[in-house]
C-alpha cells in the first residue's frame, strides 16, 4: 500500500505540473485583450463595456456577475471554446429568476435587454462532460451597451 500511495503522490505531482502547464498554454487562448479585439466588430452597433473570461473544466458550472443600470440598452455575448458539445448558458437575477436560457437553442450567443432596475445579473455557464477528465475550455461574457 505504501508504494501505491507513493505512486499516487507522484502521479498527482506530475498531474499538477502538467495541468498547470497546459492551463498556462490554454490561458494564452483565453486572454481578455485578444477576446476583446475579436469581439469589437461583432458587437456593432453596440459599444464595448466590459469582459470577463476564464478556463473551466468540462462538466463544470461557473457564474460570472455583471452590474447593469436601469433603462440602459445592453447586450451580453456568450463565448465558449474548447468543449466537445454545446455549452448551456443562463442569465439570472440575484434571486435566480431566469431571464435568458439557450436550453432550446444552444446556438444563441447573445441576450439583449433593458433592465428595469440597477442590479447585478449572473451568467451561468454549464459545460458538457467529457470522457477526458482533464478536458477544459474557455468561457467568456462580453457586455455591450448602446445609446447611453
Amino acid at each position, binding site marked *: 500500500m505504501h508504494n501505491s500511495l507513493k505512486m499516487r*503522490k507522484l502521479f498527482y505531482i506530475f498531474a499538477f505540473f502538467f495541468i498547470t502547464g497546459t492551463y498556462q498554454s490554454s490561458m494564452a487562448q483565453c486572454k481578455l485583450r485578444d477576446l476583446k479585439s475579436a469581439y469589437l466588430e461583432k458587437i456593432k452597433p453596440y459599444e464595448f*463595456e466590459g469582459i470577463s473570461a476564464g478556463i473551466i473544466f468540462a462538466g463544470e458550472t461557473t457564474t*460570472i456577475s*455583471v452590474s447593469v443600470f436601469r433603462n440602459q440598452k445592453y447586450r451580453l455575448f456568450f463565448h465558449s471554446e474548447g468543449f466537445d458539445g454545446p455549452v448551456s448558458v443562463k442569465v439570472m437575477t440575484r434571486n435566480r429568476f431566469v431571464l435568458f436560457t439557450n436550453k432550446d437553442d444552444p446556438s444563441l450567443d447573445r441576450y439583449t435587454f433593458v433592465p*428595469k*432596475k440597477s442590479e447585478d445579473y449572473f451568467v451561468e455557464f454549464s459545460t458538457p462532460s467529457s470522457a477526458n477528465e482533464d478536458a477544459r475550455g474557455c468561457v467568456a461574457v462580453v457586455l455591450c451597451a448602446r445609446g447611453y
Partner: protein
Amino acid sequence: MKKTPILKLAPFLLIFLVACGGQTEKQSESEAMQEDSAMMDTVKTQINKFVHIFPSHLKVALMFKNAGLKFDNSLLLNTANSGKLMNTYDRALGLGIYGVDMAYTAINNQTQTSINILKVTKSLSQQLGLESIYESNKYVEKFESNLNNADSVSTIIGDLFAETDAFLKDNDKLDVTLVSFAGGWTESVYIAASLAKSNKNKAIVEMVGDQLVSLNPLIKLLGENQKNFDFKPLIKQLNEAKAILESGIVKPETETEPMVFEMDDKKLDELIKKLKEIRSKVENA
C-alpha cells in the same frame, strides 16, 4: 569565517524528510483519496478565475451627462501633485480618478483639458508598467488628431479604459484594477453628488443611488484580494460611503421595481465629505 559542514545539517534534513514521508505510512487509503480530491480541487480552483464586470467609467459619465449633469472645472482633481504619487496603490487610485476626469472633460467638449489629463494618466500608467497599451494603440496621437470630435474622443477613451482593464486582469494585477476602479467610482460619484447638490437635480440623485450596484461587488473583491496591499482603510471608507448612500433609500427595490432614492443637502454633504477623504490620498500626495 567558520563554515558549517553539510554533514552537520544531515540529521536535520533526515528528520525533515522522515517527517514529510512518515505521514504517508500512517495514512489510510480513504485519507489518501480525500487528499487527492483536495489537490485536484485546488488545481480546479486556480483555473476558475472570473471577475465581476463593472460598468465602464465612460458609460457612467455619459449617463450622468444625459441626466443633466453640467460641467464644472472646479470639481476636477488638481493634477499638480500627480508626479508625487510614489507607490503602486496611490498611482492606481490616481489613475482611476484622473481617468474619470478625462472622460468627464472629453464628453463636455473640454478636449484640451482632457488631453492634459490623458498625459497624466499616461505617465501614471507607465509607472504602473502599462506603457505598452499607450504605445501599441497610439492613444495620445489619436486623441490629438480628433480634438474637434468629441464622439471620437469618447470612443478613444472608452477603448483606453477597456484595454487597461483587460491588460491588468490578463497580467494578474486584479488588485491594481480594483484600486483604480475604486478611484474612478469615487470621482464619478463625487462629481455627480456635488453637482446634484448645487442643481437640485433629482434624476442625478437617483443615479448616484444606483452606483450602489457596483460598490457592493467592489468592496467584496477588495476584501478578497489583499495579498499585495492592505485595503482595510479603503474598504472602511467605501463602507462608510455605502452607509451614507443606503441612508438615502426611501423605499427598497422589489423583484421588479427599482428602489426609491432621495438625498437632502445634509446627506449629500456627508457623502461628498467622505469621497473627498478618499480623493485626498491623491490630492495631498
